[in-house]
């Protein structure tokens, strides 16, 4: 009889779908025989037996057919192989026509190959005449063919005007929103809405200075003005000598390096008090 592996006590992790199908078929046969439950080890044994039986029948059938100088196995070869293993044909007829053909393991393998189409982005060129078809197809054209990256600019006058107007409106709206969130606001109506807010205007006491002294960029000069004024007021009240020197030094330091901010000293009024 066919040799069986010595200790098929455990069913290994059946990842092979064919193995699983064989196990299901064996379970079906057992159910037909009348068993309602089985041990895992027993099922594993029978599955292993069935697999090696199939392989052995195939092997010896092939051997018999080759013995007869043929390459294709014939029914007679199968019969010889079965007889060689001790399985007779007479019982097969009866077995086939037995009434309790209840269990038929239907699950045949189905392979899903649908994933390819999802990832396809571009179109693929077909093979030119000199390339046979069994070779893999070309990749997408955008992966290896050069094409310009700019789009043709829109030259229609209406479209351009419309785009410019829309952009201007969006900029204005965004800026006003930002201003309402960062600066002081005044409400047009008495209700406490967030709509219809007006950006408050900071009153400038010396408006003529802006006209007489135009400047290109606005740094923190406004703050400097305020802080300097405050410091001067404070220092004149207290000791004028030392702190004026310090102020002068700090001002000179600022003049040297435009990237330095003025130092913000803590309020000395509170500390002294």
């Amino acid at each position, binding site marked *: 009889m066919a040799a069986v592996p010595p200790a098929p006590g455990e069913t290994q992790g059946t990842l092979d779908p064919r193995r699983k199908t*064989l196990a299901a078929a064996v379970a079906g046969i*057992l159910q037909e025989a009348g068993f309602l439950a089985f041990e895992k080890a027993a099922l594993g044994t*029978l599955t292993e037996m069935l697999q090696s039986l199939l392989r052995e029948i195939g*092997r010896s059938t092939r051997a018999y057919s080759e013995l007869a100088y043929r390459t294709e196995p014939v029914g007679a070869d199968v019969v010889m192989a079965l007889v060689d293993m001790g399985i007779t044909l007479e019982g097969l007829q009866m077995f086939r026509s037995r009434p309790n053909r209840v269990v038929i*393991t239907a699950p045949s393998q189905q392979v899903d190959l649908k994933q390819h189409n999802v990832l396809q982005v571009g179109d693929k060129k077909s093979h030119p005449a000199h390339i046979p078809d069994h070779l893999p197809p070309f990749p997408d054209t955008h992966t290896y063919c050069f094409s310009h990256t700019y789009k043709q600019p829109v030259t229609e006058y209406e479209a351009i005007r419309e785009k410019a107007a829309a952009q201007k409106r969006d900029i204005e709206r965004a800026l006003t929103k930002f201003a309402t969130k960062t600066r002081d606001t005044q409400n047009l109506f008495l209700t406490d809405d967030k709509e219809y807010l007006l950006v408050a205007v900071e009153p400038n006491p010396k408006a003529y200075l802006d006209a007489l002294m135009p400047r290109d960029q606005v740094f923190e000069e406004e703050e400097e003005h305020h802080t300097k004024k405050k410091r001067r007021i404070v220092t004149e009240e207290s000791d004028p000598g030392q702190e004026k020197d310090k102020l002068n030094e700090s001002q000179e330091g600022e003049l040297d390096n435009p990237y330095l901010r003025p130092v913000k000293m803590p309020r000395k009024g509170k500390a002294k008090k």
Partner: protein
Amino acid sequence: MDQSGQQQGVGAAGNQVSRSAGLALTDFLMQLEEYNPTIPDAVTAYYLNSSGFDTADGRLVRLISLAAQKFVSDIANDALQHCKMRGAQQSSSKIKGKDKRFTLTMEDLTPVLAEYGITVKKPHYYI
């Protein structure tokens, strides 16, 4: 000539046997076309291909799967008889409702397989 005559006689007798077997086989193969064995054809064909058996005729594949199925089914029947014998010995116990539920265990399977010439040894404990 005598030898040839004898050969022919033997051959005729042999031909009769083989003819009947051949007829039965061809009939059987014709009947197999409608029959669906429990083992799917694709699985059987795969295992046969792995050992070199390649045929365009699907009936041979079905014949082989039927033969294998019968083999396993014989073993299962013998094991069932073992189980029933064991159940009959213990029928004096109160648990009778379980007798209808037969479970295939290694204890039943091992002697059956030994009759068929297959030795199965299960480890008693796992290390």
